[in-house]
């Protein structure tokens, strides 16, 4: 934009007005809410804050949130790699349909994403009777919550990798194979280094959503305190009990996660020269 001349520059008053308008809007909608989380969290002092996040139910919520992320993120990372590999390196019929289907979970309401698993595995669900007969609990337990989380975080890694791997093509892999590398060696030494930043980027976004997901997990969790409450659900419980200091204390942990995600994301964009993308 360094070639901008006077004729294509907005008048000074317009620039000031637009920048001011943007700043006011962002303050009102982004910065004030974010600041309020931390102010409310520490309103009753450090001791209350520390008690709220080390209390037993909060601890178990944190552990469950981390467990879900540990289950879901690697699965979706592997799927994302496989899907991107299939789409970028091979040609087959229905490729554009497959691309659209991968994006599907983003278009579906999180509540509906949770509901589908209740219809499948709930007491009145398709497999409900069978599961009960074999004493397997999926809904209102960790497996159901993991499934719902996998569903909503499904596209993140794949959609970062697909355009990149499509752009890179097959040439380097063919070169490696013709020089005698095995398929696995080619993947580790040629493909992976080429896509590592995009993969990392996708994993970070996937992780943030997995840890922060509310709607889908809320439907299948059953809200059993200390057992099936993730951190976002724990925030809701506390908030509805008018325990606002504790609710905001737990929310501040999630906010830090969000800020960390944002920081890493910006770093990768800068480091790898990636352009902006919509999650």
């Amino acid at each position: 934009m360094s070639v901008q001349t006077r004729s294509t520059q907005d008048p000074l008053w317009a620039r000031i007005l637009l920048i001011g308008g943007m700043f006011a809007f962002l303050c009102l909608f982004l910065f004030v809410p974010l600041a309020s989380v931390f102010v409310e969290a520490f309103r009753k002092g450090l001791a209350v804050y520390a008690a709220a996040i080390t209390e037993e139910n909060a601890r178990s919520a944190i552990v469950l949130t981390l467990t879900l992320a540990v289950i879901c993120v690697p699965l979706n990372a592997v799927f994302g790699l496989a899907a991107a590999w299939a789409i970028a390196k091979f040609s087959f019929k229905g490729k554009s349909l497959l691309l659209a289907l991968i994006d599907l979970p983003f278009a579906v309401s999180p509540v509906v994403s949770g509901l589908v698993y209740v219809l499948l595995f709930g007491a009145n669900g398709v497999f409900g009777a069978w599961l009960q007969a074999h004493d397997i609990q999926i809904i209102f337990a960790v497996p159901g919550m993991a499934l719902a989380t996998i569903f909503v975080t499904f596209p993140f890694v794949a959609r970062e990798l697909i355009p990149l791997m499509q752009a890179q093509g097959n040439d380097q892999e063919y070169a490696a194979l013709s020089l005698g590398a095995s398929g696995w060696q080619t993947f580790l030494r040629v493909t992976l280094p080429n896509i590592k930043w995009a993969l990392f980027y996708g994993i970070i976004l996937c992780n943030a959503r997995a840890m922060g997901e509310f709607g889908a997990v809320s439907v299948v969790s059953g809200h059993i305190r200390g057992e099936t409450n993730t951190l976002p659900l724990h925030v809701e419980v506390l908030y509805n009990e008018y325990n606002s200091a504790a609710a905001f204390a737990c929310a501040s942990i999630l906010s830090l996660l969000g800020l960390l995600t944002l920081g890493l994301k910006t770093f990768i964009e800068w480091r790898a020269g990636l352009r902006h993308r919509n999650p």
Partner: protein
Amino acid sequence: MGFTLAYLGLIVLFPLLLVFVKASGLGWSGLLHAVSTPRVLAACRLTFGLSALACLLNCVFGLLIAWVLVRYRFPGRGFLDASVDLPFAMPTAVAGIALTGIYAPNGWIGSLLKPYGIKVAFAPPGILIALVFIGLPFVVRTLQPVLEDFEIAQEEAAASLGATRWQTFCRVVFPQLAPALVTGTTLAFARAVGEYGSVVFIAGNMPGKTEIVPLLIITKLEQYDYAGATALAALMLLISFALLLLINFLQRKTLVRPNT
């Protein structure tokens, strides 16, 4: 390849198809009966009306923000640019309680508005604010790459032919941004229609007044009204599919980005 299809099929397609199978089990009259109660209709009006309003607001402010971020250079630009993604990075429940805390009658902004009789939290304006919050990045991030690639020479040509800055914007720049703007706004709308986490806290959730469709689905589930919940979910899914098709069509037609 096989793994991809199996995973996609098992986790996503099969469960979603099941919703339609279950819903069709109700029959036409059952479906109509389930979705035509006054409570459901009120929730639909509220959800779609406010989502439309929110995405229009995002359309205006998203364009403004994208324009400022791409065209102007000022201190703190990089920081503001990064912060636009805050609604994506922030868990929706956190956004929900934060916005509620601020706009509640005793909150920072709510208490300022209270003397004028303006009620934001626990009323439709509160829902609108939450929907604007979560939809904003979609418009900005769809517009930014298009604005960045825009040929400044076209504006120079317009200016040298005697157009004012405003005329140049309206006649030269805006028409080329319009497709991306429509795509971004549709993305924001699609997200707003299904949004749950950030809205439940601020909405107040009064049946018929401030109850959104996703919440109604959950309420029906909790009352073991599986038929009603499934019928509503099928309706929401159909709308999601329609919006997804529209977005794909818009993107293919305008080549905004192959993968936004």
